[in-house]
């Protein structure tokens, strides 16, 4: 584009804001990064919201080459035009709706993990105080990364599925009750790369949800039936006794039965839960790094589980939280005499704790509060995690019973302290400690040469530590120094000697920094509408999880990142 076109656009903007009733606002987010291991980023997003009378408009422009995750784009990424009058609302363009608890419709745009389940089409909504009717229709393109397709890359998705969706919902409110019935039809164009064919598949979903919201209790459930056999059920109940709350949730998602070899193959296996069905996960969403790296990867096709939650004040200014989560697959899978996977016994209505059911359990407790007349804020946690990631072998023979599986078990202790020095300055300390065992477990009734446990790491367990110290000067700036240390790495990671940055070189005088990732970050509020962030150093790669969906993010070695946020 020539400079004259940019200038012309600016003049138009100036004229419309100065002399028309049309008002607009927007936000700019831009990130630029360069590292010695070529994890380079150049990404700019510009959101513009406009309003005129009953009309609203939104457009999102993107210029990325490449973004941190996902495909490069130069142009319009999203747009929507809306009209609202009385009880009616119409939206045309990119719509994001959330029905019930998400078992049928949960349209999200999570750029942190490059997950976008929005629909491009139209929505018609009619609502009064008692009844609400929604009708929508449109298309959806879902991009994902798969090693079943040529050109696999952690950052760049290489496989696309196209959907056409039509749906409707009737919801009602009556005092503390809320309920809805809903229907959705989805037509899928599924590319099968092995035979270079697009398979056209139709799906039909019917659902219902009911919720009650009272002064001392709230509860609800949602049930969705998909096609002939698939279904999903979610229920929860919370009770409030004084300032304390106790709650439990239950999930029973069973949209497909897939063997351990096929479980994550969304390319060659058709059917199962759709990407628009982003359902409750029922385990703690962790904000700390070390716990975030071992988040359980939920299988929406086949997962049964529950959680228990307790929260309340222990003494003045201190809150205690406790959660326990358990889940597993519905059925045991085993190998027959021909080494084919066969479905076996069922876990019933509650999750199994047996490894052959891919059992997951996590217990987490946290204390959050204030000391020293409110000048010291603290947050201390403790997590115990056990997760069976993959089942490799499970056999019953006349002479032997044997199985092997990959598992993860961890003890994690995160802590965070913020001390207010005076009206302007504050000090923040974060420390996380984790002992992680990850490897292959082998069991056999008969003697075997295989060891009972083979660690994935070069040592028996991996010890991870994160230490961060920060200084803040309200309301202008904050800076932090972070060190992310591991004592060993996974055997499969074959890496050249890590490119050390200046911070790691200095720390190298104190300890061996070959497995330390250190960085310094400064954030500066240029004004209440503009914020600049600069980071220098390295960031450890690993699994990044959000909403139960995980992506592997490669390490960022010895480089810098600049970020700017501006609000129009």
């Amino acid at each position, binding site marked *: 584009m020539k400079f004259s076109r940019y200038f012309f656009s600016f003049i138009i903007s100036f004229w419309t804001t100065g002399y028309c009733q049309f008002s*607009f606002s927007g936000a700019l*987010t831009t990130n630029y990064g360069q590292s010695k291991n070529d994890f380079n980023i150049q990404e700019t997003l510009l959101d513009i919201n406009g309003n005129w009378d009953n009309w609203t408009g939104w457009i999102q422009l993107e210029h990325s080459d490449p973004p941190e995750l996902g495909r490069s784009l130069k142009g319009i990424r999203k747009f929507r035009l809306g009209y609202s009058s009385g009880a009616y609302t119409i939206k045309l363009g990119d719509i994001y709706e959330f029905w019930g608890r*998400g078992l049928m419709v949960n349209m999200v745009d999570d750029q942190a993990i490059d997950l976008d389940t929005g629909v491009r089409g139209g929505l018609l909504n009619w609502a009064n105080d008692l009844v609400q009717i929604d009708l929508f229709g449109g298309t959806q393109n879902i991009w994902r990364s798969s090693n079943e397709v040529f050109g696999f890359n952690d950052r760049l998705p290489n496989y696309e599925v196209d959907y056409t969706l039509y749906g409707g919902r009737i919801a009602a409110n009556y005092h503390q009750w809320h309920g809805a019935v809903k229907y959705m039809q989805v037509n899928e164009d599924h590319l099968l790369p092995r035979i270079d064919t697009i398979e056209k598949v139709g799906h039909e979903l019917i659902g219902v949800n009911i919720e009650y919201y009272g002064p001392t209790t709230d509860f609800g459930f949602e049930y969705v039936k998909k096609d002939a056999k698939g279904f999903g059920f979610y229920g929860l109940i919370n009770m409030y006794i004084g300032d304390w709350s106790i709650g439990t949730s239950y999930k029973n998602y069973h949209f497909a039965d897939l063997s351990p070899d096929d479980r994550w193959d969304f390319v060659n296996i058709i059917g199962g839960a759709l990407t628009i069905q982003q359902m409750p996960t029922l385990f703690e969403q962790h904000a700390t790094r070390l716990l975030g790296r071992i988040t359980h990867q939920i299988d929406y096709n086949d997962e049964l589980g529950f959680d228990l939650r307790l*929260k309340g004040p222990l003494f003045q200014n201190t809150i205690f939280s406790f959660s326990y989560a358990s889940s597993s697959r519905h059925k045991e899978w085993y190998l027959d005499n021909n080494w084919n996977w066969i479905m076996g016994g069922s876990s019933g209505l509650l999750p199994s704790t047996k490894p052959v059911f891919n059992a997951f359990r996590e217990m987490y407790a946290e204390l959050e509060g204030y000391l020293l007349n409110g000048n010291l804020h603290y947050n201390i946690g403790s997590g115990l995690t056990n997760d069976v990631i993959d089942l490799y072998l499970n056999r019953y023979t006349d002479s032997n019973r044997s199985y092997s599986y990959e598992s993860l078990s961890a003890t994690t202790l995160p802590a965070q302290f913020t001390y207010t020095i005076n009206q302007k300055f504050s000090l923040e300390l974060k420390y996380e400690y984790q002992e992680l065992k990850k490897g292959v477990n082998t069991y056999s009734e008969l003697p075997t040469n295989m060891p009972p446990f083979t660690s994935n790491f070069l040592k028996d367990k991996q010890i991870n530590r994160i230490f961060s110290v920060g200084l803040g000067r309200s309301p202008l700036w904050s800076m932090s120094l972070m060190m992310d240390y591991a004592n060993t790495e996974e055997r499969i990671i074959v890496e050249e000697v890590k490119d050390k940055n200046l911070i790691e070189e200095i720390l190298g005088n104190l300890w061996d920094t070959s497995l330390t990732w250190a960085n310094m970050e400064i954030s500066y509020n240029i004004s209440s509408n503009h914020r600049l962030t600069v980071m220098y150093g390295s960031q450890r790669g690993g699994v990044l999880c959000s909403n139960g969906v995980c992506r592997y993010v490669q390490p960022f070695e010895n480089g810098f990142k600049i970020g700017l946020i501006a609000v129009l």
Partner: protein
Amino acid sequence: MKKWILISVLVLLASTLYGQNKVPDIKLKRMNGKSVMLQDFLKKGPVLINFWATWCAPCKKEMVYLDEFEKKYTDKGLSVLAISIDSQKSISHVRSYIRAKKYSFDVFLDPNSQVLKKLNGNLMPTDILIGQDGTILWRHNGYIPGDEKKMEAEIKAAVQSTS
């Protein structure tokens, strides 16, 4: 790189000089599923909107002061609206957290961040102070201890201009 710099400079210039700051009338959803319009609160006086999440540590540190301001200035017309962007993964924690802390401000849900995007939010927490005429008086991203001083000064100015 040059295009990126040019786009950023033009937009920054436009935003600094000529950006308008009126909010549209937005539908907000309470925890009990019922909806209200933002304009219903603006009829009473200025509104402080806070976007937060149960997994956001700075958000939780800031909330102590939001509760304090709500109690101190509600008689002067201020409404504090805390909008949680917790997704379906953590949405069940919202009510229990608010209840354990005994916070008195209004809480709403925005599980797929559509209200956040309409009001141009990016970071957690995001605070937006809106005057009774719908004009955005002040906004702030993030929280560093001490930010509450500036927030209270802006609230005082907003309620005084209303009375």
